[in-house]
């Protein structure tokens, strides 16, 4: 089976303005969301407590809120259903330092009389740990991006690196916008998902760029746009196929993977779609726009090749004992 016609070159660059406009629109929308609605930071980053409780029959949330009002700590708790009608999550911004009787034990006492329940999870994160995790998370993002920039610069050229990193920023921004829009609690796992998106989207971009690199060397034309169009077309069925398989597995994770990793798989789901889109429609046009010059790059490659050959020749002479 084949998805795309193999004898036709699709004109991606001709429509690049349209795609970039769509992307700019989405990014702008994301930032508006991020600055107005903001992110719903979970306890990993803000500190606080989560108690997950399962009852033996469907819960009446109102009753539970009433019961919690009796306690000073849980007075302002947020109570939401979690995955099913029997299961709830109680969230408060406070955490306790006391080890012997912690906030989870208090929850257990307060909930007495609300039915038969089992406390399945208690997460307590102190404010100090929260801010530390936040800093570490930011660091991880920045270091990953720098590492990628360096690697791509070495393997390709700095404009390839810049274009791919801009595409990554594009993906992460839109993913964050979606996270904000759907009010997904941002915890450590979301950070992991975002870093995975970085890796995944880059994967796609690199494969297109690899083809462009190859095309630059092999193509007879000096028209960068043409080379890019050809390269994207040639990798199109690979990009689509891999994206589809990845999309399917992430979808199964989202549907069947359980409530705890729902935010994680949601972020990945958005990331796979946006990452695929950006590899095809954003990264490559950016390469042209960043002033990438075909002839110069070819000249540089030729120079490099010459030097390598020279080295090889010298070595051969050396080994034969001429020098």
């Amino acid at each position: 089976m084949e998805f795309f016609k193999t004898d036709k070159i699709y004109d991606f660059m001709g429509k690049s303005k349209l795609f970039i406009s769509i992307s700019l629109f989405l990014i702008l929308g994301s930032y508006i969301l991020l600055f107005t609605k903001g992110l719903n930071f979970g306890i990993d980053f803000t500190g606080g407590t989560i108690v997950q409780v399962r009852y033996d029959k469907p819960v009446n949330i109102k009753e539970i809120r009433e019961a919690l009002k009796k306690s000073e700590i849980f007075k302002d708790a947020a109570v939401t259903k979690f995955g099913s009608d029997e299961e709830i999550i109680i969230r408060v911004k406070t955490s306790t330092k006391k080890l012997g009787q912690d906030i989870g034990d208090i929850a257990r006492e307060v909930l007495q009389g609300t039915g038969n329940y089992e406390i399945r999870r208690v997460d307590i994160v102190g404010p100090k740990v929260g801010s530390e995790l936040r800093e570490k998370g930011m660091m991880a993002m920045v270091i990953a991006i720098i590492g990628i920039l360096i690697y791509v610069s070495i393997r390709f050229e700095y404009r390839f690196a810049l274009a791919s990193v801009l595409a990554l920023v594009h993906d992460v921004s839109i993913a964050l916008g979606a996270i904000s829009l759907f009010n997904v609690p941002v915890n450590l796992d979301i950070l992991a998902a975002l870093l995975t998106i970085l890796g995944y989207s880059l994967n796609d971009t690199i494969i297109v760029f690899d083809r462009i690199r190859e095309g630059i060397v092999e193509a007879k034309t000096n028209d960068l746009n043409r080379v890019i169009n050809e390269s994207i077309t040639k990798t199109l069925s690979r990009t689509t196929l891999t994206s589809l398989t990845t999309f399917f597995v992430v979808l199964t994770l989202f549907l069947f993977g359980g409530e705890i990793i729902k935010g994680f798989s949601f972020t990945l789901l958005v990331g796979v779609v946006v990452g695929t889109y950006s590899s095809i429609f954003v990264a490559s046009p950016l390469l042209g726009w960043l002033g990438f010059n075909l002839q110069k790059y070819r000249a540089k490659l030729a120079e490099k090749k010459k030097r390598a050959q020279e080295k090889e020749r010298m070595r051969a002479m050396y080994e034969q004992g001429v020098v």
Partner: protein
Amino acid sequence: MRVLNYRLVIFLIALMGGIALSIPSFLNLKEGPKITLGLDLQGGLHMLLGVDTDAAIKSKIKSIASSIKYFAEDNDILLEDLKIEDKDIKFTLLDKDDEPKMDEMLKNISGLKVEKHSLHYVVTLTPQEIESVKEYAINQAVDTIRNRLDQFGLAEPNVAKQGKDKILVELPGIKTPKQEQRIRSLIAKAAHLQLMAVDEDRAARVYQMSPEEAAEYGDVILSDAKNPKIKYLLKEIPILDGSMIIDAKVAFDQNNQPVINFTLNSEGAKIFGDFTAKSVGKHLAIVLDNKVYSAPVIRERIGGGSGQISGGFSVQEAHDVAIALRSGALLAPVFLLEKRSVGPSLGADSIKASLIALISGFVIVVLFMIFYYGIAGIIADIALVANLFLIIGVMALFGATLTLPGMAGIVLTVGMAVDANVIISERIRELLREGVSIKKAIEQGYKNAMSAILDANITTLIAAVVLYAYGTGPIKGFAITISIGILASMLTAILGTHGIYEALLPKIEKSKNLSLWFGLKVKGK
């Protein structure tokens, strides 16, 4: 016909190794390398604790004050106003002749800074000593907590220092919140035993006295363990403390109430004996964690260095206190920075859910590949299966921990691991379309695909390594599975499938059915 080639051989060896190493994990065998399930999957308690190092410094100062006091009494040196103010020990010598003796004694205690104004002494700890006390307190807390958990009899507790000043405690296999709370209490127990003298001169006025006034006399007011309304006025500097305990056991008194019998080391026994000999008729308070358990009258000198703590314990409490006393007092209180506790039923649910996701994702990808690529798809699927075994096998080999995000990582790997084969198959198809011979198309296809596969995987690996370096607990697990998955997929997808193609080449060349082998529609046929 050459069926075996070096690529296929390496692949088969790796595959068999992967299967062999993953069998113990799949069948849950007792022997052999096995994947450890993370606390989020098997249920358990994960805690990050902080240590209140200031308290350790205070108690160090207190114990130095105790030694000074004991030394003075032992040598008939008269001291006036021995007391602790903030982090300083202050006292005045009454007799100038005692000065050399006292100076000699202070010199023998390391890490002290002594200031003298004639016979008025101010003794404090040097900054280096303070640092080392802090460090010691943290290390001691790690050892003590580990000791207590070992004695409690839980399976595989993990206690480790994390960073400079944090303690990581991981306890799998906790069944109920009640059990968890009991263990937390055991960890938190200071188990600070002190034998203190009652201030007999002023004891009668204890109910009228403020803590500040008591401090002026060098006393503290502590309340009774059973009845907080009963107060005792005690000399702040203890006769001795729990650091001299070598054993503690639960026993039962004549009323069949649980009590704890403790034994002091020889030094403690001597101090205890000397004190009781001198203080017949006076009260001795047995104080545990700043609560007075009893304050009996001393009838005679108590030799042998043993004592008893009694006072309304339940059997369970007595058992836990004895463990805590045996494993030593915490020099500094510990407090909670982070806790994650997952019940066993939730862990089991998570395993089930992620397995369903894994299997259904796997089936979709496998079918899709066959549908799209024909036999080339089957070959890619074989690589995928081998990849899964390798991930599990390698994780088992290194005793890595599988967490819930790690499971998600494996699911994700299933989607991404076929990528290399997709790239290769596309390249082969391209060459076949150009009319290149099958043998050449396969050779050249692998060659052409190589740079893209390498670059793409290495960049993903960069992200995964950063995630590992900066992630904690479960997230680290995710980074590990992704990294192993990438490396394993390079082996299976590049080397393995290439070997299979080489072995099958005569067959492919004979059949020439490109649609069947590569899912390729060839025009004109």
